[in-house]
């Protein structure tokens, strides 16, 4: 999220938000359990490359700011290693929330990785295990 961007907080944003409902349906997680201790971000191996670390993504979602959470690159940097989930003292499966964010975006019809545009060199070099997992997370 740009540093000086103003955000508007309102209970309405949390109460009636189609994408937020979808997020709950896909992840089956209660993001309101999170009390922002930051354990997830402390151990996330990819947090330094994220626009917003995992605990801040959860905070944005708690405030109903799902667009801002999706605007950040964080869910696309997440490697689904499940560290955050294991370390969360409140039992929030953050990895599932990240997956839900990816799914909501992918289901709007935009793939994060364009397979056609990957170079032949990359496709030849990388093992199936890398390609399949990447396409599973980043395309629909």
């Amino acid at each position, binding site marked *: 999220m740009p540093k000086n961007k103003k955000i508007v907080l309102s209970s309405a944003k949390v109460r009636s938000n189609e994408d937020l409902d979808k997020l709950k349906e896909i992840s089956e997680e209660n993001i309101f359990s999170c009390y922002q201790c930051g354990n997830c971000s402390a151990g996330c*191996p990819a947090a330094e*490359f994220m626009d917003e670390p995992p605990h801040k993504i959860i905070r944005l979602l708690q405030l109903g700011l799902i667009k801002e959470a999706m605007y950040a690159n964080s869910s696309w940097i997440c*490697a*689904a290693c*499940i560290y955050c*989930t294991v370390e969360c003292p409140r039992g929030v499966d953050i990895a599932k929330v990240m*997956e839900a964010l990816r799914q909501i975006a992918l289901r709007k019809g935009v793939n994060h990785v364009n397979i056609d545009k990957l170079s032949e060199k990359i496709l030849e070099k990388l093992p199936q*295990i890398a390609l399949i*997992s990447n396409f599973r*997370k980043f395309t629909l």
Partner: protein
Amino acid sequence: MKISYYPGCTVKTSAKNLENSALPLLGMFDIQTEELDDWYCCGVTFSQSADNLMYQLAPIRTLVKAKESGNKRLLTLCDMCYNTLKRSSLVVKNDPEKQQTIRDFMYLEKTEFKGDEIEIIHILSLLREIGAEEIKKRISRKVNNLKVAPYYGCMILRPREIAIDSAEDPRLMENILNTLGIETVDYPFRSDCCTSYQIVNEPEIVKAHTKKLVNSIKKRGGDIIVLSCPLCHFNIDEIQKQIAEEDESFETIPVLYFTQLLALLVGIDPNVNDFSLHYIDPRPVLERKGLL
């Protein structure tokens, strides 16, 4: 003992040396692996979307094949396969509603799967079960002061319900190696993620992680990294070559499958290791340490 075996995609191609070292090793301890007649790619990553069960079908169909094989246990060599198969079986076992939805979809398939008929076992768990003392009896090579850095990655340690060892301080490989008289290196990134599929479109993340990992091991005097996951292997091995090309001062470290090291120690034909599949050639270190 007979055990069903699920190879998965990469074990049949760029990680062929994982299979070729692991299966003869198990054979030495009277474990006969029977590869499933018909298996599917597990999908590599477990699908975490609760509202779409389609992604669970491939791993479940493989588990159905395992059930039909008549063996109670299914061996996986790959960490990603282990994670996906195990978690999919737990979806079926722990969620009756999802089990029913999946069953309804697979109504033409005869064998029902309830989630608990097959024990999915990872190669490292099986080696722990065989026992370090038993493995020690078969050691035929004397090693010169080899320092090994075990790397666990994430898929065999997380989430908790499928973990084969402590997610924070795993000791499985250390315990075996130490019993065999081999020194291990204690370093902080043993159970960190290798950053996985980011290698496709964000290789810089993999690079940064690998640099941190390798430097930390080098600082502590490690000679080789051992692991069990073909994706971790590719990521940590291949990217080191790139880092070394960009930065002359970077010291590389060879990456071997845990089973390759054990196969060398117990005297299985070294050709099974097919070092041409490695980007950082392990042969100079292995020769120096008396393993080749």
